């Protein structure tokens, strides 16, 4: 069946983006795999981690299977302390777990766990992000007549407000001076504006991973600054994608690419990630629609 075979797109048409540096065995990897790997490294053993769909679930799975076996993974759907056996398609897909220790309502996850301060780390994807880590995941363009309507805030607005640390991933998104829509609040207007607005102390975005580099937030001004570039990416390349005068760390961190072990796990347990590349998607969409419409016409005849 042509339609059902689209699963097999997973490894075809891979885009060889980066080459690894010398000390790791030379192998190719996708930007998304690099992002998942970097995100997973933020999870410490023992952390209570709230995961969203896509990159976060894959990162949680990777950390749990490697350096953080004792981390507590949870999703807002009320699947608490789960052991994944493959990356879930969405946050309520408990059929992709090997079991979990606490089944509760969505309301319990938000109130008794998140709002009470028991989430150490959460991950959020963004379509637009500004200088102070405020996030847009709702619309691109004017709210009333947008260029693109995105999924919406989901639980993100509350996650970023209450989790001790938030890692933002910006895979296909952009840096903007002003967000088209503020779905989730970061450091608002910088400085101590977040504390003044009664956000719980000691919370806020801690790291941003883009498709080109890793960014931190200044302790005092809360402004985004470049921490390190991916292998093969120059500071100037990153500057071009940022509409303001980007601050840069005095010493840039060297970012090592994922090892073979990590890559193996990602490819084995989260193959779906790669299908989401736009090149494959376009191919998939046209293939499927043609196939189905064709079959229907045949039927009519």
């Amino acid at each position: 069946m042509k339609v059902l075979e689209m699963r097999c797109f997973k490894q075809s048409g891979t885009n060889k983006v980066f080459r690894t540096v010398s000390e790791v065995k030379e192998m190719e990897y996708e930007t998304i795999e690099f992002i998942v790997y970097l995100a997973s490294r933020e999870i410490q053993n023992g952390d209570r981690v709230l995961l969203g769909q896509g990159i976060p679930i894959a990162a949680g799975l990777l950390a749990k299977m490697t350096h953080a076996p004792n981390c507590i993974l949870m999703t807002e759907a009320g699947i608490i302390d789960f052991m994944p056996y493959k990356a879930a398609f969405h946050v309520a897909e408990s059929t992709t777990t090997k079991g979990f220790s606490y089944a509760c309502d969505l309301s319990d996850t938000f109130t008794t766990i998140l709002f009470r301060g028991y989430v150490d780390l959460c991950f959020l994807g963004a379509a637009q992000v500004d200088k102070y880590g405020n996030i847009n995941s709702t619309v691109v363009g004017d709210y009333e007549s947008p260029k693109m309507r995105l999924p919406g805030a989901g639980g993100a607005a509350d996650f970023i407000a209450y989790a001790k640390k938030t890692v933002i991933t910006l895979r296909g998104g952009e840096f903007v001076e002003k967000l088209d829509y503020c779905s989730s609040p970061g450091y608002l207007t910088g400085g101590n504006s977040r504390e003044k607005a009664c956000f719980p102390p000691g919370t806020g975005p801690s790291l941003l991973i883009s498709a080109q580099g890793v960014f931190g937030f200044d302790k005092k001004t809360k402004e985004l600054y470049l921490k390190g570039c991916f292998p093969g990416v120059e500071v100037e390349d990153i500057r071009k994608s940022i509409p303001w005068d980007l601050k840069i760390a005095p010493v840039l961190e060297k970012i090592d690419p994922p090892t073979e072990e990590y890559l193996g796990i990602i490819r084995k347990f989260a193959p779906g990630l790669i299908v989401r590349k736009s090149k494959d998607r376009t191919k998939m969409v046209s293939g499927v629609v043609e196939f189905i419409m064709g079959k229907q016409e045949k039927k009519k005849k």
Partner: protein
Amino acid sequence: MFRVNLLLFYIKFVLVSFGENFMVEEEVHDKAMTASEAVKKFISDGESVCLGNFLQSSPLALIHEIVRQRKRDLTLWSTSLIDEADILIGAGCLKRMVTAFTYRVGGATLPTEFERAWKEKRVEVEDHSNYSIMAMLMAGAMGLTFMQVPITLKYTDIFNKRSFMGENKFKEIDCPFTGKRLLLVPGVNPDVAIVHVQRVDAYGNAQLWGALGTAKWSCLASKKIVVSAEEIVDHEIINSSPHLTIIPGFRVNAVVLEPWGAHPAEVQGYYDMDVPFRGVFFAMDANPESLQAFLYEWIYNLENREEYIEHYIERFGMKYLQRLKAKPYFSAPANYGSSFTRESL
């Protein structure tokens, strides 16, 4: 005056409860019905419909039935959606929706019906956060008029931009105990909740396990509840596992037996999500003509869920349906025994 009112209320209550007592036997049998009967009887044009399940075991059989019966001007309440909204909007059933998340496979290559409806203003959408919707439903379920949500939402456009809820989307007060500024949402009671669960008895005691999400509060908040289930089981089975029951039978209006009732969504212990089929849907969803073709092929041209599954098998083969089936992995039984064992009673 107040006393008279109270007396009248009491008389009414006694009458109603007597009336109910006489009707118990009949009502129990009346609850089991087909999806078509349940939707006809309990969902009317213009009503607000709350999707009970949070992504997992989405009540798609009932949603398809709503589409088939061409219900109009509904208001949809749901925290997070995958393909449900696109189906309902594509079929022209929705007037308004309150939601926090409507899935998009991503990127500009795959526009959705939700996006088109948004741009063409065919549907009024109130953007919320998952928890603020949950809070409105929880308040409604508990009989409260409002619920507190994090004040931090005030710094987002969820607070600033308002659609049909307008002034009543959020309100602020000072906490009478601490003096802190509080953000509130109103309690809501949607007209009807539709929910798909693993098993239910003839009385409507519905058991759900896996990702519980919003199921309990969504149903309890609503005025009427329609339950579809993979299996209808004996009351004895429910009685020996009450910890799995999320809705008490006396709240449920209709019980619908609907195996594969959530396909292509997953039901813990029964089947996995049909990812390729959902891929097909999103591919078809990318333009209005192919979406209509999808609706005709999978909903309008079929009578019920049984035909849907038959059509699926005809289209893709039994192998693909079997592939989704869950292998059993039973939960450890809980001992509900006491000094009075069931035998001695």
